């Protein structure tokens, strides 16, 4: 360095450009901007019409069943409850994650735009968490919209006056909370997996493979397990069975994962596992972005 400074011959002339004197918006602003931008791009907002095709098709897979269930319920038929709804839409959710997660992270890796982000006050950790939050919010937005449709349909046809409406509202809010818990695990896993590849096709494939391979493997182990205890533990392998177990334990649902009752220690174990899985994948995501070549 000293050689360079001593041999320096060039001079930087002040050619009269005005310096920026206004307020600096700082890291929080950058984080917020990145989050909003990512959330918008998940739905193709601010992009061409062609980019909106994917989110619109996927949205239809969420809204369609919601409308169907609303109509069925208004006819007095027994349908899916708010709590069961996210599990009923597992496949559309997996497709959504497989297509949107790479859209959020793989493009930046591939186009080498990361150095542009990191040259701002935005830190690497912030970037990773903003992307994860955007994916979570995107899926959550679709699920809440679908649940809201079901709720509105129910609230106008519910019997029993104000108490009926209040009960319905309680169920709806519980459903929202459940959806948030159920969304956290798969989204954090998906964004981590997607961040491993700059090729969107491969990233999508890996996300689908994660969910679609663990499910039969877990089923297989449950069948092969000798004891009941082992059987319950095998359910931990599949992120989607895992989240169903959490729902069953937290909200006392009988329909699926029937072996998880409130008194069983496994409900707590499942919930802990879901928590560790979420936090763990977020940590790994942060680590991944600490090292990623930019």
């Amino acid at each position, binding site marked *: 360095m000293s050689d360079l400074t001593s041999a320096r011959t060039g001079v930087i002339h002040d050619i009269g450009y005005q310096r920026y004197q206004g307020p600096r918006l700082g890291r929080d602003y950058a984080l917020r901007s990145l989050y909003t931008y990512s959330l918008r791009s998940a739905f193709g907002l601010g992009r061409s019409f062609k980019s909106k*095709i994917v989110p619109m098709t996927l949205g239809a897979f969420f809204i369609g069943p919601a409308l169907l269930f609303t109509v069925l319920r208004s006819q007095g038929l027994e349908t899916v409850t708010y709590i069961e709804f996210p599990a009923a839409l597992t*496949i559309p959710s997996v*497709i959504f994650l497989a297509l949107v997660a790479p859209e959020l992270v793989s493009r930046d890796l591939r186009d080498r735009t990361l150095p542009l982000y990191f040259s701002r006050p935005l830190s690497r950790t912030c970037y990773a968490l903003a992307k994860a939050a955007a994916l979570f919010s995107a899926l959550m937005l679709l699920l809440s919209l679908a649940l809201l449709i079901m709720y509105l349909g129910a609230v106008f046809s519910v019997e029993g006056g104000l108490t009926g409406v209040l009960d319905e509202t309680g169920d709806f809010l519980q459903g929202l909370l459940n959806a948030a818990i159920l969304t956290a695990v798969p989204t954090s896993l998906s964004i981590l997996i997607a961040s491993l590849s700059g090729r969107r*096709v491969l990233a999508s494939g890996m996300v689908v493979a994660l969910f679609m391979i663990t499910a039969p493997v877990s089923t*297989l182990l449950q069948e092969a397990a000798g004891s009941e205890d082992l059987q319950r533990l095998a359910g931990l392998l599949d992120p989607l069975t895992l989240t169903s177990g959490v729902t069953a334990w937290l909200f006392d649902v009988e329909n699926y994962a029937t072996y998880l009752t409130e008194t069983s220690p496994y409900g707590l174990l499942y919930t802990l596992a879901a928590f560790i899985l979420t936090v763990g994948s977020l940590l790994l995501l942060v680590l991944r972005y600490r090292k990623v070549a930019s």
Partner: protein
Amino acid sequence: MRLNTTIMRITMRSMLSRKRALLLIPMPLLLIVLTVLCANSSSIATAEWVEVLIGDLGVAVVLPLTALIIGTSVLGSEIEDGTITHILAKPLPRSEIVLSKLVVAFVLTMVTAAVPLGITGAIAGSNSFAVALLVGCTVAALAYSAFFVALSLLTRRPLLVGLIYVLLWESTLSALFKGIRNLSIQQYAISITDRIDNSDLLISDLSVTVAVVMSVVFTVVGTLVASDRLRSFNLTGEAA
């Protein structure tokens, strides 16, 4: 219709370069490892694990997913990168380009999905089951490849359509509505396997005639549609 060895070589190289090839290995490897584990385990009946492992995992997930990733990449990655212009600028019949790409996609899918499935078949049952599974999956690999290559030219979002086809149409809807099985490549694979081998490890109620005829239809129509789409291919593409 001829094959172009240069296009095939370049495609093969781009598909197998660096880490990318490694990503195709875990799925079939996992399948074989699990099969070996199950075959040596005494606590679960063969018919049970074959249904889950070969049926639900192998034929329903590994085969279509591999075919989807490879089939949409052979032409799709060139479109995405813009290198398709170099190929289109050469004085080659479009059918030759499509056919060369299709052969590469088929061979790769076969090696990374159909052959491992055949191996699991050999571990699971008799040699005849292995051969039957290999034949069934090879036919399906060809049909899937042609379908997904055509898809990558028909739509800008081949992955969306492909995933909906594999996960919703073939897996979910065909379980609800039996008629859909007539349009499910996965069912063709199972039907052909069931017909060649009579050990009843995989059972399909789809007639084998329908399966064979429809596999041919998928392959031929896919190839023709892809050639036709490439003939009038719009180079400007979408605004990012």
